[in-house]
């Protein structure tokens, strides 16, 4: 077992984790964050994506002990039922959610991109999404949803 402490969705947390425990399991089982999904388990589908220091990582291929001292975000960071995040609102407005299975991860890659590029080109959006599969929407709606949420991030920019 290893003792780790990290920031999870803005709060300092600590946990005991197994030596061979994957971050995916820690988040789902120890912190009940069921938005983090497992599908392919080999880093191809992207549904297990979480942000570590605001960069997308596959939690199905990350040891839990690696996030000791770091910042981890799941989609629960963005908004809740009472007040959705503008990026989430944009996904709904564009019909970018159908079955919803890929959505938490898609929101996180969109969020990470918009933190870095306040006005991303379509090529940058496509590139940012290229590690995540969606089998419902055909992607166009997701691209548009991310693009149209950019003004919110721009107005939040500190730089």
């Amino acid at each position: 077992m290893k003792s780790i402490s990290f920031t999870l969705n803005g709060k300092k947390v600590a946990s005991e984790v197994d030596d061979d425990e994957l971050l995916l399991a820690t988040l789902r089982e120890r912190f009940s964050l069921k938005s983090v999904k497992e599908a392919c388990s080999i880093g191809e589908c992207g549904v297990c994506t979480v942000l570590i220091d605001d960069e997308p990582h596959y939690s199905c291929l990350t040891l839990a002990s690696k996030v000791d001292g770091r910042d981890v975000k799941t989609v629960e960071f963005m908004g809740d039922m009472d007040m959705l995040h503008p990026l989430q609102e944009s996904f709904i407005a564009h019909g970018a959610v159908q079955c919803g299975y890929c959505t938490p991860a898609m929101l996180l890659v969109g969020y990470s991109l918009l933190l870095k590029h306040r006005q991303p080109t379509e090529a940058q959006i496509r590139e940012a999404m290229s590690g995540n599969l969606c089998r419902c929407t055909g992607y166009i709606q997701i691209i548009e949803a991310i693009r149209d949420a950019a003004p919110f991030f721009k107005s939040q920019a500190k730089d």
Partner: protein
Amino acid sequence: MLPHFSSLRPKTKGEALTYLSDLDRAKLLAGGTDLLVRMKRGESHDYLIDITAIEELSGAVLNGGRIRVGAGTTHRSLSLSPLVLESARSLAQAASWIGSPQIRTMGTIGGNLVNASPAADSIPPLLVHDALLTLESMDGERTERVEDFIIAPYTTTTTGREMLTALSLEPLPAYEEGYRRVAKRAAWAISRLGIAWSILEQEGTFADVRLAIGSCTPLPFRARKVERFLTGRKREIAVTREAVKICLDEIRRISGERPSFTYKLPVVRDLLQAILGGR
């Protein structure tokens, strides 16, 4: 399911080398994008030594006239490094196409090399830059050329007690340079073909040419015959056409005829013609 193992997370290179020397059935873990996938498919190790917390293994700097790249540098940071973009552009480009954004954030150049896939995008650029690898163990240190390090697909000269710690590349800032690949799609695709090149042209003449081709022969290779032919010759179509022909003959000599060549060789021909013609 991942087989059970104990994990260690050293903060220094020395600590990692001590673990490697003392523990049996131990394996180094870098980005995990290959190793953990293989372990989920049944490969097992008693210990994984996670080397991602070792800061000295990460980053690209100019050192004694060469580019020193820590083996733990991620594909993403290589693709964004101003030094690599300026003096080893093909490596930055290749790194920007590996896997997916998540894979590039997690995976490392050292891991990619040790994995030694014949389709690894990082290898042709390293061949172009005459990369030397530093391998360390408790018994000492050795340096090996990248072409000697990979001895067969998925096989290198490393012993289980050694760690690839750094790569040293010849900087080529004045050269025209790039990496092109052909794959079934842009993201998450294994390269079907990859060409790295670095060309120094002086007054219309090829002063120095370096070409490395991946995913075509069992191991990526430097097309030295073509390089020798071109050096000192005029950069004109008759010359580059002849060079392309020499290259295709060389590929056939190394691999023999392959069913895939009906498709691949015309692509090599057109890509090389465009590269050598400066298009």
